[in-house]
């Protein structure tokens, strides 16, 4: 049985633990440095300076969030197991699901703070370089947050039963598959239409692409930098549906992680 109060207590402790992690500071400082470097890139680029700064900074935001989600996310559960702090914690009247959810929300708190700091840096850079900072950029940041929310859930799922190295590899694998699955399906259908592959092979390839597209979370949906940078309007309720889509995947991943974790023995 899940206790909201205990989830909040574990989440707060996880947040407190994460913000004292040196890896986190390294990633945050490196990200801020890279964000400022985007000004230089904008100057060097043959493209519009404002566009380069915006797209580079959004990519940096997404990538640094990915690093935090994967490395801090995986180490959070593994550290509890390796340092045996999990023994005392799980002997308290809390369910394993409460533990997983608390860890998840704690790390999401860290991700939220990270994105907030970067957003402030991002807007400062845009103001400093007169690169037309618009509020619509917040839509892109909002979706980066949901994308990372899915990645953190994947990282927690893998770290509930695997080693840290394998968990990191699996998580990155799902991340890239999730970003490329839409493209893969489009490519397969394009090649079919062009008649380059036909018959049984064509059907098999399409089915494989459809399965990959259906199973892996479509993380490409959360990259809308092209829309906001060029001022193109998003489809109606895009943000709402993307949020619900993320919540669906997160619920499944955390459900499996809790179920697996509750079967696990702690020596």
């Amino acid at each position, binding site marked *: 049985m899940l206790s909201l109060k205990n989830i909040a207590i574990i989440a707060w*402790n996880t947040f407190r*633990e994460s913000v004292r992690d040196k890896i986190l500071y390294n990633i945050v400082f490196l990200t801020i440095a890279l964000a400022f470097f985007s000004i230089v890139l904008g100057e060097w680029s043959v493209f519009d300076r404002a566009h380069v700064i915006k797209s580079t900074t959004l990519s940096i935001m997404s990538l640094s969030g990915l690093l935090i989600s994967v490395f801090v996310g995986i180490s959070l559960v593994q550290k509890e197991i390796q340092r045996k702090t999990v*023994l*005392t914690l799980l002997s308290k*009247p809390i369910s394993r699901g409460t533990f997983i959810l608390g860890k998840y929300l704690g790390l999401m708190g860290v991700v939220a703070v990270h994105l907030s700091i970067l957003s402030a840096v991002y807007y400062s850079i845009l103001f400093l370089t007169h690169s037309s900072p618009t509020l619509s950029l917040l839509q892109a940041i909002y979706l980066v947050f949901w994308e990372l929310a899915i990645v953190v859930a994947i990282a927690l799922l893998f770290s509930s039963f695997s080693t840290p190295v394998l968990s990191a590899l699996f998580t990155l694998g799902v991340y890239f598959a999730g970003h490329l699955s839409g493209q893969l399906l489009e490519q397969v259908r394009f090649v079919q239409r062009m008649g380059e592959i036909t018959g049984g092979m064509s059907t098999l390839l399409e089915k494989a692409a459809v399965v990959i597209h259906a199973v892996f979370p479509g993380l490409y949906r959360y990259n809308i930098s092209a829309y906001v940078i060029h001022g193109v309007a998003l489809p109606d309720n895009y943000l709402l549906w993307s949020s619900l889509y993320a919540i669906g995947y997160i619920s499944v991943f955390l459900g499996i992680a809790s179920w697996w974790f509750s079967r696990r*023995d702690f020596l």
Partner: protein
Amino acid sequence: MIQIENLTKTYRTGFFMHQKPALKGISLSVPRGMIYGFIGPNGAGKSTTIKILTGLLGADSGKVAIAGMPPKRPQTRKILGYCPEQPYFYDYLSGRELLSFYGRLVGLEGATLNARIQWALQTVHADKDWIDRRLRTYSKGMMQRVGLAQSILSKPELLILDEPMSGLDPMGRRDVREAILSLNQEGVTIFYSSHLLSDVESISERVAMIVDGKIVREGTVEEITESASTEYHVRTGQTLLEQDLPQNVVSTGHPQEWVCKDATSKDAFLSYCLSHNISIEKMENSRPSLEEVLTKEIARAES
């Protein structure tokens, strides 16, 4: 309070998942309000049993119940306090912060939480300045006391301690012993494992001895040591010849002092003395210590 019936647990280790039985059908029962010692050599299955009792490990077969409830259920752990062997905690917190964290997890808040932390610290003799220092600066003894304090924060009905005295200096051991006795006087049932058999002998009401995954002895310390072979030292009024005496009666080297190896040989020797009008000047029995019994059981299991 604790019921264990035919409990088995096998670990699977290595690439080929070799099976290593840790518990081979153990059964024991701990009544409410008792201090119960659980002793055995390293790798005998003590920590495995304790982790099954605290819900950290699942059993392969058998029944385990704490106050009639399965240990895997979070509600069961509301009445349970547990301190693992060599407790590890979040070392970025101070001792007091850690206790506050665990206290809130067991449902304490505000003034009640602070009062309970103070009570727990006093009980384990840890209400000192160092409690507000970061845990990474703590010695093993300090860590053990904090571990014990967190286990009693909820005022549990059952306290399970895995090697609570290991690595402590004599003062630390005395403090932990006193804490166990004082909690027991307040009605807490205590189930603990220990290597320090002198401590077990001094505070346990009952003891279970586990060797190679099986309970080999169970009872009060007296029952266990009595059930092991007891020797009788007899001093006779006259000198005797060893070859005339019943079986299992041996000389100590003195012609009037004899050792009967068991109760049967003692009875036979006394009958012999009676029938030959030999007076008995002194007779005492020497009971083996818990350590000697355990050593014999380990040797038996190894053979």
